[in-house]
């Protein structure tokens, strides 16, 4: 236990302070303001992998690491679509995930938003037009915003979330 506390003390808080990643912090603060206004301080995200290569998931997970700590802005990931305001979908929508994606969306209460995260989800990736893919999230669901990147970096994901809040 002593070593755990010692490590925590040594490392301190690494969550990006303004000076180190000003862009992330500035975006984050703005995002928080919008979330406070429009979602009473709490926006719940349900993420669905609809045929991603797993890279998008790794970067979305990174939003929860101590450097980005997305939750401090009032955004958090939830397990149940019933609790979600926002569907964050990745992948070119493999036909085998198509219906699961639709049902996840249908299970979300209104009002609800959909972000297609990553080049595949936006219909620009390596997997468009194959027999096994619908080609883009917008081929299956109404999409409010696309976030580019292969995969999008945590910063790009945050920028995208902010754009949606400002829309």
């Amino acid at each position: 236990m002593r070593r755990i506390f010692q490590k925590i003390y040594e490392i301190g808080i690494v969550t990006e302070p303004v000076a180190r990643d000003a862009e992330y912090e500035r975006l984050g603060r703005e995002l928080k303001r919008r979330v406070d206004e429009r979602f009473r301080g709490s926006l719940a995200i349900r993420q669905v992998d609809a045929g991603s290569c797993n890279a998008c998931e790794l970067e979305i997970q990174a939003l929860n690491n101590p450097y980005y700590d997305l939750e401090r802005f009032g955004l958090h990931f939830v397990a149940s679509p019933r609790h979600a305001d926002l569907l964050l979908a990745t992948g070119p929508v493999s036909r085998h995930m198509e219906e699961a994606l639709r049902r996840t969306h249908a299970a979300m209460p209104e009002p609800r938003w959909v972000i297609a995260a990553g080049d595949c989800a936006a219909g620009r990736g390596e997997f468009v037009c194959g027999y096994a893919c619908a080609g883009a999230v917008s081929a299956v669901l109404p999409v409010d915003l696309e976030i580019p990147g292969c995969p999008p970096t945590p910063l790009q994901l945050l920028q995208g979330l902010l754009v949606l809040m400002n829309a």
Partner: protein
Amino acid sequence: MSQSRFTWLPKLLSRLAKSRLALSECPDAPRPALAYGVQAEDWGRLPVYLQEQGCRFAGLWAEVRDGRLAVLACVEKQGDYLVFETEVPIAKPELGSWSPVYPGANRLERHARDLLGLVFLNSPDARRWTRHQAWGEDEHPLRKDFPAEGHGSAPTPADAGYPFERVEGEAVYEIPVGPVHAGIIEPGHFRFHALGETVLNLEARLGYVHKGIEKLAEGRDGAGLLRLAARVSGDSAVAHAWAAAQALERTSGAEVPERGLMLRALLAERERIANHLGDIGAICNDVGFSFAHMQFGRLRELWLRRNAALFGHRLLFDTLVPGGVARNLDKDGVLALLADCRALRKEVTSLFPVLRDSQSLRDRLMGAGVLAKDQAQRLGCLGFVARASGIDYDLRRDHGYAPYERLSLEHPLHQAGDVAARVLQRAEEIYASLGAIRQLLDRLPHGPIAVSLKPPEPGTRGLGLVDGWRGEILSYVRFGEGGRVSRYFPRDPSWFNWPALEVLIHGNIVPDFPVCNKSINGSYAGVDL
């Protein structure tokens, strides 16, 4: 290739000859393997002798050749690889199954059936695997008459009617999980049968992220192939791209310059460390030890940021190109990477004892999800999963590909086969990779980082064999007109590690499934293709 290669082959060949199993050596073997043609009627009994001679099953795939279906299977012994192949008419595509002898062949055979229509007779499990509802039972996407773009845009229904195994009995209940899981992870379905808290049976049903990668590879040039390969499993971008690049370069006869090879190995070891860091943290998080999750997440993030700064991509996508690597490393870069290695070594050396001494972590990880050595061997498990169960195979040493044969690598090994052993194994592999990176940076020669390739001749083919962080990746590439890919099959190690999960979960409690699953961390994308 050294002189001591294939020393075991004469004995195997004479054993096969004695069993009246006629072989013909293929002059166009996919290097570095040797290849032998087999009569289709002998296909089913071949694995009996291979197993008897101590060959490990390493892969099975098929391709269309002039209106016939060719089936290829690969085995390994002492780091050498043999490919056997046979052909069956497309009108009657039947042959014997290897699954009764090599259980690891089962899902690969089912995949070959779903995509090419092969029928493996006397298979113990002939259910569909990759196919859900996107195409019919009589259609085969990898056949030439199947349109690459598919059958239009009508909605595809959810999968239904898959005949799961059933466990009956008083108080036995079933838990269906997925394809959409609770966390930010890949989709798949797990079907549990439990009695109280105890798992009686687990069956995985994958295929949800099938994107048709094998079909999408057709017609690509070398650069396009490597871009696709990097996206087979996004956590193994370097390893899969490297395996595809090896197959390409062996086919076109290109020699990657020494500096390019060393940089590839550097990227591969950085990829291994990034994944090990993230997963060790995530395994601890699955049993509620968030301290480790935060600390290892922090170290992984720093590691990825360096990737972005020096190689242009956090997950090292598209850092490999045909003939070498895309980006050079300057002196400052070398110094930064060396400093990173020292810093990371110091960090993990202060963190691992905390993990080791945490009583609650020990309680949850030790004895959980035990995979015995003989089980791992039977399934053909690879990488850290195999090495944590006492199977001492490391492609970098035992097959020995450039530039690893010139490095002196540590090879950690564990015997317990439980979740704790897999964590320890990966912890020690971080040190081994740090040692490898150190040697690579110390010896990094001057010179070009890539050569230009001439397109491979039509009909030529090659194998790529790379030790990714999950273990051996085997990639087969055949080229057609104009040096364009006519067949690409990447066999991710997850084909053989996923089935281990169904075995090691027996007798564990349902709440331990997440940590057992994470301790294997099979790739969904890598096997769904």
